[in-house]
């Protein structure tokens, strides 16, 4: 195969895989913010729990950290989701009876604690060195077939999530959720258990974020404590959802694709900067993302694909 074509193909596959992983994260956040209006400022924490769980369960045994247990990768996914959900549950239980800002502060807190633990407990996850022997499914197929197979797997996961989220959106559960989001008092008055509904959305959303983390650990075959930094997870995913259109599952995926293209595209651009700026290019890109977030919030708060208004019964 032509080397240049091969390089381009691999680049396209990596772009598409990252799109799939971010798509999963955005669908998870849309469950929380789009459905239920819950502000999760600690996506990085739930992402990290999923990623580390996968790394510890699937990597080969090592004297440097807990495990690894050498599990088959697919078996690790449900456990990763379960653990993320288990951590989300008490946080939600405590905060969801109170209003939004408290949840935001508590999720910042929990992700900070998760970061501290992963950074400092070497026995658990090899501290700052991280785990670099995570197996990726379909690796044995070689390049590029294995990469394509993994990409297909990631996209399949995203599509399954999308279909499930769409069904949930239309279901009585989704309608009740939006009713609570838009008018808590009225929803409570017609007998909806506001805290329980919110808790369900929060826990399920966090589980999906854990799933995104698990896929990411597999894709990079590595997870280190730098992955718990909020920039590439918490911030980027929020920007994606807001730009794509919160409250719209397709918008969530579109946002993931658009913003990841911008993020990767600017990487190509900043690589052409003078040498002394290249080292700082990632800050320039972070700056761009921050500015983008503010502008979109001010001017296009509904995103590219806005939430669809409910269908009127009489039409």
């Amino acid at each position, binding site marked *: 195969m032509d080397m240049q074509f091969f390089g381009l193909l691999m680049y396209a596959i990596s772009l598409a895989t990252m799109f799939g992983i971010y798509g999963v994260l955005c669908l998870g956040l849309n469950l929380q913010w789009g459905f239920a*209006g819950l*502000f999760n*400022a600690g996506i990085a924490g739930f992402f990290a729990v999923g990623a580390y769980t996968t790394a510890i369960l699937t990597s080969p045994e090592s004297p440097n950290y807990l495990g690894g247990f050498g599990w088959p990768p697919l078996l690790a996914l449900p456990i990763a989701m379960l653990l993320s959900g288990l951590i989300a549950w008490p946080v939600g239980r*405590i*905060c969801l009876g*109170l*209003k*939004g*800002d*408290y949840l*935001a*502060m*508590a999720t*910042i*807190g*929990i992700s*900070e*604690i998760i970061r*501290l633990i992963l*950074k*400092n407990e070497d026995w658990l996850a090899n501290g700052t060195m991280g785990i670099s022997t995570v197996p990726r499914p379909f690796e044995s197929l070689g390049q590029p077939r294995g990469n394509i197979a993994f990409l297909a797997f990631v996209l399949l996961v995203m599509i399954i999530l999308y279909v499930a989220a769409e069904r949930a959106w239309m279901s009585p559960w989704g309608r009740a959720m939006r009713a609570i989001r838009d008018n808590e008092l009225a929803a409570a008055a017609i007998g909806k258990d506001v805290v329980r509904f919110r808790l369900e959305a929060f826990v399920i959303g966090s589980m999906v974020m854990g799933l995104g983390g698990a896929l990411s650990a597999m894709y990079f075959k590595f997870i280190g404590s730098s992955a718990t930094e909020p*920039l590439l997870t918490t*911030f980027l995913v*929020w920007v994606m959802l*807001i730009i794509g259109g919160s409250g719209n599952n397709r918008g969530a995926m579109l946002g993931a694709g658009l913003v990841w293209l911008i993020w990767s595209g600017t990487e190509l651009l900043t690589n052409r900067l003078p040498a002394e700026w290249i080292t*700082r290019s990632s*800050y*320039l890109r*972070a*700056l761009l*993302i*921050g*500015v983008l*977030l*503010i502008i979109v*919030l*001010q001017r296009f*708060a509904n995103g590219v694909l806005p939430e669809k208004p409910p269908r009127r019964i009489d039409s």
Partner: protein
Amino acid sequence: MEALAEFVNLYFLPGVAVGCIYALGAVGISLIFAILRFAHFAHGDVMTLGAYLAYSLVASLGWSVYLALPVAVLGGALASVAIDRVVYQPFRRSPGIIVVIASFGVMLVLRSLIQLFWGVDVLNYETGIRKPIPLIGDFRLAQKHIIIILVSLAIAAALHWFLSRSRMGKAMRAMSDDADLARISGIDTEKVVRWTWLIGGGLAAAAGVFAGINSKLHPSVGWDLLLPLFAAAILGGIGKPYGAIVGGLAIGIAQEVATYPWISDLPLVPPAYKNAVAFFVMVCMLIWRPTGIFKGRVL
């Protein structure tokens, strides 16, 4: 006696100094919440900005950091007013949580600007170690801690005067009580908002400079303090500036004292987990008394 002196010198008094830093930051968060009704997530990065402004003066003009402090405070104050004008003002009538997301964006912008201009290396205001100053008997206090504590006390006194005596301070309390009624009374609420940012931003810059003096300077110096700041604001009752001062002191002291070897020879809480103490306090407050010890507002 010696053990007590060690406890006080190495744990309690440094805890008071850290508590002062938290108090300065948390007062701003509480004031901004009281007036604008949203949790300001970029507050830690305003602190970082203040710390780096002071650093520039120290590094380029050879000023003492204490001389640079007022300039940094002014810089933090003006920057906050400017950020409000450009970013937050269009959201005055939006739900609070939208503004929180916007403050996320501000956080990203501030931090990346700081990284672009000042780099990511760990910096110090001054090198070398100064001898602690003896107080009474075996009790000693580091010079930097004395200054942090005294300046913080002076700032707290000035703030108290401002809020209880000055016309603008009272207008601020009025708006915190009821923004519509403040408007009906003829108070220019946008002016109150500007003053809130001036004070909140200025205090944050002071806290940032002190955090840099107390340990080191790096681009996430403020972000790392965000969790204890929120914990302090909730502990004191969010929206209550005086509560935030007490909450800040309590969290600072608790964090340092928790690293004392209370049970075995090892620290009770490893120093790397100091922030976990703040989180623990925050969680306890959210469970049992979300209004805070001084009965703040429940969001």
